[in-house]
């Protein structure tokens, strides 16, 4: 069964080697685009290089193969695109014969946790704003809203208390709002964790789009908010010196919108490109 170990051909010349590497790179690129992990890509490309070199060695015996000979061989072999088709086929067929007990692909847990945390953040934000907005009337916190103060020798009216200053407001903040408000950090971390886990799972986990969403949602929200604050400040200073406030507002609003769309688009595209390929 062993193939004959013919002597190694002398090193390929520059052009031939470059053509070989171009072919191998093209195959690896296809495998990367179809989300094959690095170890898989390396294994496949190494096998392919071995095959090409051994086939060339069998053909030319003890001299160095030429570029034409390599090109002829490559035309007889599968083109790089063939690895895409087979990557999909093999990934979608975990086993040609299915046996009981094989797990189907599952949604990534870190991504699911990140999505839940975003929901929690939205809920917590609403609760916090409500707690800040609500004022608790004095009679709720005290049986007598008007209290005699002996130090100043007169009756004073008790101030209304904010809901977040009450014991139940504090409890809500501790158990609901604080976990919700650390969501920006937690969700971003979970997003990147999800991307990494999905990439390394070789199609055993899914949800890469949601993981990318988790990874970008809060950073983009923060970036957009910071941009708006900055532009708002610039606008305020410009309006003080301008008689055409409305026109300035329209121009700045359009420029800001264009800037935000550009920033968001670049960021989303970069994260998605990273997420869509495998490390």
């Amino acid at each position, binding site marked *: 069964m062993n193939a004959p170990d013919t002597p190694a051909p002398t090193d390929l010349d520059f052009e031939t080697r470059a053509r070989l590497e171009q072919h191998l790179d093209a195959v690896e690129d296809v495998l990367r685009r179809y989300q094959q992990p690095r170890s898989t890509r390396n*294994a496949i490309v190494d096998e392919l290089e071995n095959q090409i*070199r051994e086939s060339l060695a069998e053909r030319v015996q003890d001299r160095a193969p030429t570029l034409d000979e390599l090109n002829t061989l490559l035309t007889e072999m599968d083109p790089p695109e063939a690895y895409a088709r*087979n990557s999909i086929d093999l990934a979608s067929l975990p086993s040609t014969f299915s046996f009981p007990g094989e797990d189907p692909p599952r949604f990534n847990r870190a991504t699911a946790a990140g999505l839940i945390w975003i929901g929690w953040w939205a809920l917590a934000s609403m609760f916090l704003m409500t707690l800040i907005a609500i004022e608790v009337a004095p009679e709720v916190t005290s049986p007598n809203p008007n209290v005699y103060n002996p130090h100043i020798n007169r009756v004073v009216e008790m101030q209304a208390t904010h809901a977040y200053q009450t014991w139940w407001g504090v409890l809500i903040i501790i158990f609901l709002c604080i976990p919700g408000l650390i969501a920006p950090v937690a969700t971003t971390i979970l997003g990147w964790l999800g991307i990494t886990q999905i990439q390394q799972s070789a199609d055993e986990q899914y949800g890469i789009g949601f993981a990318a969403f988790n990874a970008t949602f809060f950073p983009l929200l923060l970036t957009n908010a910071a941009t708006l604050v900055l532009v708002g400040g610039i606008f305020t200073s410009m309006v003080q010196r301008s008689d055409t406030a409305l026109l300035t507002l329209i121009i700045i609003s359009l420029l800001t919108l264009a800037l935000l769309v550009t920033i968001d688009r670049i960021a989303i595209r970069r994260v998605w490109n990273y997420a869509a390929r495998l490390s």
Partner: protein
Amino acid sequence: MKSWSAQLRKGLVELAVLAALRNEEAYGYQLLQKLNALPAFSLTESTVYPLLARLTKDELVSVRVGPSPHGPPRRYYQLTTAGQQHLDEMKTHWQQLTKSFDDLLENAP
């Protein structure tokens, strides 16, 4: 007919690769040549090498790296115990299937 034949071959690739490794280890190109020597069962490298990578990941085959006179080190594949069990299950299934189809085809009008 051509498409049907291709689909059938595709479904048998894993069984063929595991069966080819049943008695002896082989490196990728060597395995490809062995499978291509089977009549009516030609496979290409873009099918076999990704499959070998997956079988390795699934721990159905193990890999031993050895020197190559021509390029990167050769990767010699060998069935693991799990791979042997998997092959036995596939073989049983395949034999039942072929027997059923033999009966069906022989009794066909």
